[in-house]
C-alpha cells in the first residue's frame, strides 16, 4: 500500500520536474521579443501632446498607463483610442472621463495675424513646434503640423488664437449615415 502511494507521489514529482523544465526551456527559447509596453501604448495615443490627461505629453501618459493609470483620460483620442488601449491592456473599455474634457471635432489653431503682437509665448507653449515667428514678429501656425492641442490659446496675452475646425472639402468628405429619425438610411433633404 505504502509503496503504491510512494510510487504515485514519485511519478507526480517526476512529471512536475519534467514539465517544469520543459516550460522553463520554452519560455527562454520561444520568448517573444516585443516593443516595451510603454512604446506600444504611446503608439496608440494621438500624440497631440495636449496634456489634457494631466501628464506633460503623450509619452508620460503612456508610462502612467503602463503603471496602472486609467485608460480613459485622453479626449483627443476619444472612444477609438480607449477601445484600442483596452484591447492592448486587456481591460474593459470605459467611457471617456469627462473630468479631462470631452471628445471634440478635430481642430487646428489659427492666429489672427493682424492682432498678434509677437510675444513668442505661444511658440514656447507649442509642444510640436508648429508655430512660426520671432520676437515682435507676427506668428503663424503651420496647419499641417498643428495637433490641435489647445496649449497655445491660454498663454496668448491678446487672445488672438482661435481653435477652428478643419473645413470639409470634397477630398476629405466622408459618406455618412444621416442621423434622421427614419433610421440608418442615408436620405437627406437639401434645402
Amino acid at each position, binding site marked *: 500500500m505504502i509503496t503504491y502511494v510512494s510510487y504515485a507521489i514519485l511519478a507526480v514529482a517526476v512529471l512536475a520536474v519534467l514539465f517544469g523544465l520543459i516550460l522553463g526551456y520554452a519560455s527562454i527559447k520561444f520568448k517573444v521579443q516585443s516593443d516595451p509596453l510603454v512604446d506600444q501604448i504611446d503608439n496608440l495615443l494621438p500624440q497631440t501632446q495636449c496634456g489634457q490627461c494631466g501628464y506633460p505629453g503623450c509619452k508620460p501618459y503612456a508610462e502612467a498607463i503602463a503603471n496602472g493609470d486609467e485608460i480613459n483620460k485622453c479626449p483627443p483620442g476619444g472612444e477609438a483610442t480607449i477601445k484600442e488601449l483596452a484591447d492592448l491592456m486587456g481591460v474593459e473599455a470605459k467611457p471617456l472621463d469627462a473630468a479631462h474634457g470631452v471628445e471634440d471635432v478635430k481642430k487646428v489653431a489659427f492666429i489672427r495675424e493682424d492682432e498678434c503682437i509677437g510675444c513668442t509665448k505661444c511658440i514656447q507653449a507649442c509642444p510640436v513646434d508648429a508655430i512660426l515667428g520671432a520676437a515682435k514678429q507676427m506668428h503663424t501656425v503651420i496647419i499641417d503640423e498643428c495637433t490641435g492641442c489647445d496649449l497655445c490659446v491660454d498663454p496668448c496675452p491678446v487672445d488672438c488664437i482661435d481653435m477652428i475646425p478643419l473645413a470639409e472639402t470634397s477630398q476629405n468628405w466622408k*459618406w455618412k449615415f444621416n442621423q434622421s429619425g427614419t433610421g440608418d*438610411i*442615408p*436620405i*437627406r*433633404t*437639401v*434645402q
Partner: protein
Amino acid sequence: MPKQKRQLNKKIMTAKSSSSPHHHIQRGTGAVMRIVMFACIPGIALQTFFFGYGILIQVLLAMATAVIAEATILELRKKPVEHALKDCSALVAGLLLAICLPPLAPWWIVVIGTCFAVVIVKQLYGGLGYNLFNPAMAAYVMLLISFPVQMTSWLPPAVLAEQTIGLKDTVYIILTGYTSNGYNLDQLRVAADGLTMATPLDHVKTALTQNLTVEEAINSEIFRGSSGIGWSLVALGYLIGGLALLKLKIINWHIPLSMIMGAVLCASLLYLIDNSIYPGPWFHIVNGSLIVGAFFIATDPVSASTTNNGRLIFGFAIGMWTIIIRTFGNYPDAIAFSVILMNMAVPLIDYYTRPRTYGHKVKAKSISKE
C-alpha cells in the same frame, strides 16, 4: 424662361440624397420566406394524404404560436414588431418544426417547441440573422430529448391503419390525447396487426436490435404495398419543393447536393461493408427527413455556412453525420443532431473557406517574354 429654370433649380434642390446603388431587386426577406413556405406545400399535401390531417393541424398550430411568441418577445425587447413579423421568418421556423413532428403529437409539444425555437434559439441570440443554431432543429432536439415518447409516436400511413382518422378525431387526439371515440394513440398504433408502428427508420432500428437482417426488416408489413411507397412519396414531395427553391435561386445547390452526396457515400460504404446490418443508400434517402433536411433545413441561411466551398463541406458533413448517427446512435433519425453539430462548426468553416478575392495571390506579371 429663366424664371422657370430658376424655379426648376429650386425644386430639384429638395431632392433626397442617397447612396448608390439606387436600383434594387424586388425580392425582400419576406418574399424569400414566403416562397420557402409555398415550396413546402407539395410535401405537406402528400404527408396529409398518407398520414392524415395531423400535419396540417400541427403546421397551423406551430405558425400561430410562432407569430404570437415572436410578437411577444419583440415587444419585451422593445423592438419594432411589425417589421419583424413581415419578414415571416418566425412562420418558417414554426413550419419547419411542425413538418418534422409526429402528426399526432399532443398540442403542447408543438407549442413548447415553437416557443423554444423562436424565443430562445432565435430572439435571445439577438433575433433574425444572429442565431447560431437552426431554430427548428434546435427545438426538435430539445423536444426529442425531453419528450422521447411523444416525439416518436408516429402513426402508420393512413392507408395501413385499420380505421382512418378523420379531421375531427385528429383535432381531438392532438388536443386531448383521445379520439372522439375514446381511443388513445397507443391503441390506434397497435390497431394494425398488433404491430407497433413507427417510422421505417425506427422499425429497422428496432428490427436490427432483434437480430433481424435489414432484408427481413424491410420485408415486414410496414414497407409492403402502397404504404411503403408513402414515405418515399412524401420525400418526393419535398424534393419537388426543394428543386423549385433551387430554380428560383432561393437556395444554392451546394448544400442539398453535398448533403445527399455525403449521406449516399457514407451509407454506401457501410452497405458494402455488411449489407445485412446496414441498409443501402436508397433506403436512407427516401426514409426519414433527409430530403427535407437537405433542401429546407440545412439551407437555412442564417445558421449555415455562407461561402460556396464552406457550403459543400457543411452539407457533406451533415449528410455523413446523419448516416453515422442513424446507424450507430440511439435515435432513429439524425438530421437535427447533424445540423446542430455542423452549425457549431460554421464560423470555423467560413473562416477557412474564404474565396480568393480578385487580384489576390496572383503573379504580378504574366506577360510572355518577348
